[in-house]
């Protein structure tokens, strides 16, 4: 009798526990701490927030999402271990993450080997070029940012520029991409300076640029505090030429850091998310970015950032793919992600193909100008 009772109880418990296994398990390895935490922190918060939201609304295909998230601290070796853990131990059906290019590149082989779809949140074009079957990404590439900036320069009849780039991963990569396409726009780079990621003064480099005859504008591919210092030094030296910053500093924090006065007139390519309130009613992205911005700011009490937007788009793409695939099989999800069509995200409207695992075009960027400590769209 006792035995029968125990077995029944056990069976009941097992029966009750079973539906938990039916959850759709998705993984993430994000650099929440460490040098890339200003990227990873909003990404992780966004993923947690959205998964909660989706589950509250009934989940995906009637099943709840379960998010397994690890903090790799920006260390590619650690990211690699967590990626292996997600695939082998947690047995997730898809993974979002790789906050930096380094961590993303280090973990791609894990997912390609295990045939689990992976959506990276890092910038470099190498992640999706050449195309790998299971690897996708959401942020625009540095090359697209360069193209957007050069288009704007061309429109303003600027043909001779100076460049001052950070020597960190972001700055070095964008510097390379910009130089590779600058010729296509009939623009010449007359001065090419660099600075280290922790340098506190860029006056010497800017003085060099200022002294060069014929320069019409200056471009600063960089990330973190460097561009803010460049902007301040630029104002102090009264260079008096248009200054272009990169999408790497498209945040309110940059204006604060550089000071509204020094940043006045600075142009940079940014996403719709940054100027959600300024978008016209007719803009297709307006509804998406406003909803995300409001939800994020309400939940965290912090201003929304472009980087959190990358995670937002990655999760939306994934959820959309699982819905269309009607299954949570990794290979089915992969095929569905590749078939993503006209999905409106915070970075732009995503349409993937077998040759394009990013799915964004230049229209995803808005050319922005800083005015009186705020943003203005200049198209």
């Amino acid at each position, binding site marked *: 009798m006792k035995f029968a009772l125990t077995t029944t109880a056990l069976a009941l418990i097992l029966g009750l526990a079973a539906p938990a296994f039916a959850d759709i398990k998705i993984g993430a390895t994000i650099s*929440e*701490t460490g040098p890339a935490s200003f990227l990873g922190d909003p990404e992780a918060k966004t993923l947690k927030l959205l998964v909660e939201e989706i589950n509250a609304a009934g989940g995906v295909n009637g099943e709840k999402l379960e998010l397994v998230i*690890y*903090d*790799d*601290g*920006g*260390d*590619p*070796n*650690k990211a*690699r*271990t967590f990626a*292996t*853990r997600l*695939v*082998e*131990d947690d047995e997730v059906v898809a993974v979002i993450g790789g906050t*930096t*290019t*380094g961590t993303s*590149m*280090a973990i791609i*082989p894990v997912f390609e*080997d295990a045939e689990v779809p992976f959506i990276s949140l890092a910038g*470099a074009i*190498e992640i999706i070029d050449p195309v790998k079957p299971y690897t996708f990404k959401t942020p625009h590439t540095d090359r697209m940012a360069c193209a957007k900036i050069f288009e704007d320069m061309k429109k303003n009849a600027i043909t001779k520029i100076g460049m001052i780039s950070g*020597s*960190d*991963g972001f700055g*070095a*990569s964008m510097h*390379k991409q910009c130089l590779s396409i600058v010729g296509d726009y009939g623009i010449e780079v007359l001065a090419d300076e660099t600075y280290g990621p922790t340098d506190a003064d860029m006056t010497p480099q800017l003085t060099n640029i200022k002294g060069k005859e014929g320069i019409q504008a200056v471009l600063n591919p960089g990330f973190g505090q460097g561009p803010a210092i460049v902007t301040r030094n630029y104002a102090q030296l009264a260079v008096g030429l248009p200054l272009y910053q990169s999408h790497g500093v498209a945040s309110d924090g940059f204006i604060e850091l550089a000071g509204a006065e020094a940043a006045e007139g600075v142009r940079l390519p940014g996403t719709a998310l940054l100027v959600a309130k300024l978008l016209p009613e007719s803009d297709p992205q307006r509804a998406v970015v406003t909803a995300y911005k409001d939800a994020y700011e309400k939940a965290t009490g912090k201003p929304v950032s472009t980087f959190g937007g990358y995670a937002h788009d990655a999760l939306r793409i994934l959820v959309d793919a699982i819905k269309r695939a009607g299954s949570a099989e990794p290979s089915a999800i992969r095929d569905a992600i590749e078939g993503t069509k006209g999905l409106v995200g915070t970075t732009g409207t995503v349409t993937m193909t077998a040759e394009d695992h990013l799915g964004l075009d230049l229209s995803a960027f808005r050319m922005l100008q800083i005015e009186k400590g705020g943003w203005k769209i200049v198209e």
Partner: protein
Amino acid sequence: MRLSSKVTTLLILAAVIAIAPVFFPSSYYFRVGSLIFVNGLAVAGLVILIGYAGQISLGHAGFAGIGAYACALAPVHLGLHPALAALLGALLSAAIAYLVGRPILRLKGYYLAVASLGFGILVSMVLSNEAQLTGGPDGMAVPELGLRAVLKAIGIDLSNTEFWYAFSGLVLVLGAWLALNLYHSPTGRALRALHGSEVAARTVGVDVAHYKLVAFVISAVYASVSGSLLALQNKFITPDVAGFMHSIEMVTMTVLGGAGSVLGAILGAAILTTLPQVLTIFQEYEQLMLGLVMMLVMIFMREGLLPSIARRIRGRAE
């Protein structure tokens, strides 16, 4: 018959490596295991430097960086096989350790710590800044070692993680064997003598500067091979491998487990490699924990975890 401590240590190590996979629920544990072995190898080298010779290096990650990038660069630019590239990295590390160590080790005191600290930072800066060559902070791809394919051809089919578990485990046992042999050799005795007292060692005819240099060069080769293994296993490498924190981690592992004992130091590597995997939520405080562990061990267990515990057990038995 009583086994010598050398044979006992090697047997324990080999047995743990061979038996542990029985308890692995998934192949992710092979990955953690192989990381322990890779770190353990670097740490075994540091035992020779810190434990035997009593010198401190704060830049050994620099040698790991040289070993790792040799495997990434030499196959592309010199057309070398990755295994030969690892060898080249080891030779290069030895040569650099010789050049750096030769003038500095003639001095007494903490000069080696300061110089190696500078050297490690220098390597990581070069790797980050020479982007045309090294890919900069974004890192670069490392070619496949190719040994797994050879094994498959002769009928041993291992998954990637299983192969690296077995291979780095093998290299670790080999490294531990060499380090233990060194301990009982004339060189090892000379090192221990100068660790005890440089003046006394010199009086009995030990060339102090020479033997310190030998220890430094050997430990640099260990670190370089461990960097090569890491690069070949990950097939991708970034300058983080040569970072300052990595050097500190290595020293902490050595001191935690017991700088004078090869097995103890490997235990230290195992603990500090597994810890971040167990305490994933404490990632933010990892460096704080490292510092705390280091301080506690230095205050309460000056010989390190394993020797202190072993002594306590032995003391109770007697």
